[in-house]
């Protein structure tokens, strides 16, 4: 019997010939990640409760200061300090200080730290993002992370795999974000609960690595354990000159077993949004055009890499944010910010009247720099809009791609980007 990519990685990491869905395994970890909210408890559990003095391999751990950093208040300053002290005391090699890293799920891929064929865990639910690079990556809790740091191993239940096959190319304006929102709308926020989401097909050939990261980023929004894509030319090119270790891609066997196979015609996917208050509350954009907005947020590990900012800037160029609305743009990493500066994108944002912030999670989790008040309506390029996610439980959040977000900031209501810019200029990705 053949195995899926996910099964192959878990078999290798647990030292077995093969694994089957439902098996409970103890597997070796190739790379682990924690941040300012999860390192302080994990470090404390590891040292004080588990009695471990050092990390199993400080070269295989990354730590970012991203969630409430730069510190939003005195309590988060303490979390930042505990994170910093622990990282230094443990000799963690990949520690990213405020102003030098950014959001974990952008920082790890862009630094070539998470690689094909690997078993990666992160103490953050969106760690599934890394699967775009053909690895098994999943989110874990703080006690889990403490266990990983102490032993370099962790228990897993081998998931069933769901296969998603995408046919044809996406239409003009339609982005990876629209595709994944559409898919989650179809299967629901628990449609892939605890399962592997393997996504393949012709459509992905035309989707670059940054947009692929958007697709796997949202696997958790369908409840998936991991999202995983095939290794191809696009993966290889992205990793050339970036990968920090040698790697071995994995491929699903032709006779691998899937719990279910879904087929989607990507050409039929329209521009869309997730309406309040759930990421599976999909609606075609046409249904919500004209919805009045208090805030537009372009940010997060989902949609704030350089290609996202380029599209937002192309739409905003020569325009102003509508009166009565505010636009907040938060790059997802320091490298993205540097590149945006080089390309003159920041000038465009500032001229449009946007608030440009440092690279951080910020408004995405209702942390700081864009928290919503009661009854406010926001269009956001982030990944989840459960009640209270970005602030008050009665704030309303719509999710969209960055071009839609930028166009909507210009008009102050949800708007099709072609209303503001006829066509996306060739070459803008």
């Amino acid at each position, binding site marked *: 019997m053949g195995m899926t990519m996910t099964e192959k990685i878990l078999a290798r990491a647990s030292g077995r010939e093969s694994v089957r869905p439902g098996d*409970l395994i103890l597997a070796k970890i190739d790379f682990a990640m924690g941040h300012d*909210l*999860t390192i*302080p*408890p994990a470090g*404390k*559990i590891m040292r004080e*409760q*588990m*009695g*471990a003095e050092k990390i199993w391999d400080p070269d295989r751990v990354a730590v970012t200061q991203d*969630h*409430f950093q730069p510190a939003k*208040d005195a*309590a*988060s300053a*303490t*979390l930042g300090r505990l994170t910093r002290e622990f990282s230094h005391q443990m000799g963690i090699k990949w520690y990213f200080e405020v102003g030098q890293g950014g959001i974990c799920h952008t920082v790890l891929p862009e630094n070539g730290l998470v690689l094909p064929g690997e078993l990666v865990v*992160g*103490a*953050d*639910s969106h*760690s599934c993002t890394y699967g775009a690079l053909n690895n098994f990556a999943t*989110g*874990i*809790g*703080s*006690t*889990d992370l*403490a*266990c990983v740091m*102490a*032993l370099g191993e962790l*228990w897993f*239940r081998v998931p069933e795999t769901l296969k998603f096959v995408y046919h044809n190319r996406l239409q003009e304006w339609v982005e990876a974000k629209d595709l994944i929102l559409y898919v989650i709308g179809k299967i629901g*926020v*628990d449609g892939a*609960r*605890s399962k592997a989401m393997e996504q393949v097909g012709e459509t992905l050939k035309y989707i670059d690595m940054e947009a692929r990261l958007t697709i796997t980023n949202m696997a958790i929004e369908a*409840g998936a*354990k991991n999202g995983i894509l095939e290794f191809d030319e696009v993966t290889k090119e992205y990793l050339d000159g970036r990968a920090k270790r040698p790697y071995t891609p994995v491929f699903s066997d032709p006779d691998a077993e899937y719990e279910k196979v879904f087929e989607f015609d990507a050409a039929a996917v329209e521009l869309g949004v997730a309406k309040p208050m*759930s990421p599976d509350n999909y609606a075609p954009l046409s249904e919500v055009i004209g919805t009045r907005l208090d805030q537009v947020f372009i940010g997060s590990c989902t949609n704030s890499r350089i290609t996202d900012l380029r599209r937002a800037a192309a739409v905003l160029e020569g325009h102003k944010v509508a009166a009565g609305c505010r636009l907040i743009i938060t790059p997802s990493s320091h490298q993205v910010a540097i590149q945006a500066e080089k390309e003159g994108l920041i000038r465009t944002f500032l001229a449009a009247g946007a608030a440009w912030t440092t690279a951080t999670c910020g408004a995405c*989790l*209702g*942390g700081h720099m864009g928290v919503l008040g009661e009854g406010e309506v926001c269009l956001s390029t982030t990944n*989840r809009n*459960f*009640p*209270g*996610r970005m602030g008050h*439980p*009665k704030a309303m959040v719509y999710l969209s791609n960055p071009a839609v977000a930028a166009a909507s900031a210009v008009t102050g209501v949800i708007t099709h980007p072609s209303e503001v810019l006829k066509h996306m200029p060739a070459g803008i990705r």
Partner: protein
Amino acid sequence: MTLPKVIRGKAWKFGANIDTDQIIPAKYAIYSLDEIELGKHAMEGVPDRDGWAAGVEAGDILVAGSNFGCGSSREIAPIAIRGAGISLVIADSYARIFFRNAINLGYPILQSPQAAEAVVEGDELEVDLEQGIIRDFTRSDEYRCEAFPPFMNELLKMGGLVPWVRERLRERRLAARA
């Protein structure tokens, strides 16, 4: 810390897809090392449940619909619920990280679609953890829970992942000395 065999308490009922931002809004992550403080804010993000935690009596049982605990990986979600005084969670189904976190903490969470459907808020429940049976005295009914795989049972019985890791570290130290 080992689990009691039988837990009794009054039911609090929640719906489907209650995510971690509703269980404990992200802003309280600053209290990640303070279970009592977290407990005061448990379920605060659920619309129209203002002040819920203050009404919980130690030992009460939380009963929820499907996909309970979806969303973020924050371990403070089960910790906040425990901190509020909830002795046990029963749900139709769980999001996987919430499930992992609870097992790792040695905090009992049961899966019972039957109970999730039938139990009404305020019902008096008695849960036999060993046999996996939920008795509803208010409704004079009985519901079954799904059994955990052996390894998870072992973790729960040991009191979670911490003692398990301690044991493995001890083995490794012994092996290194030999």
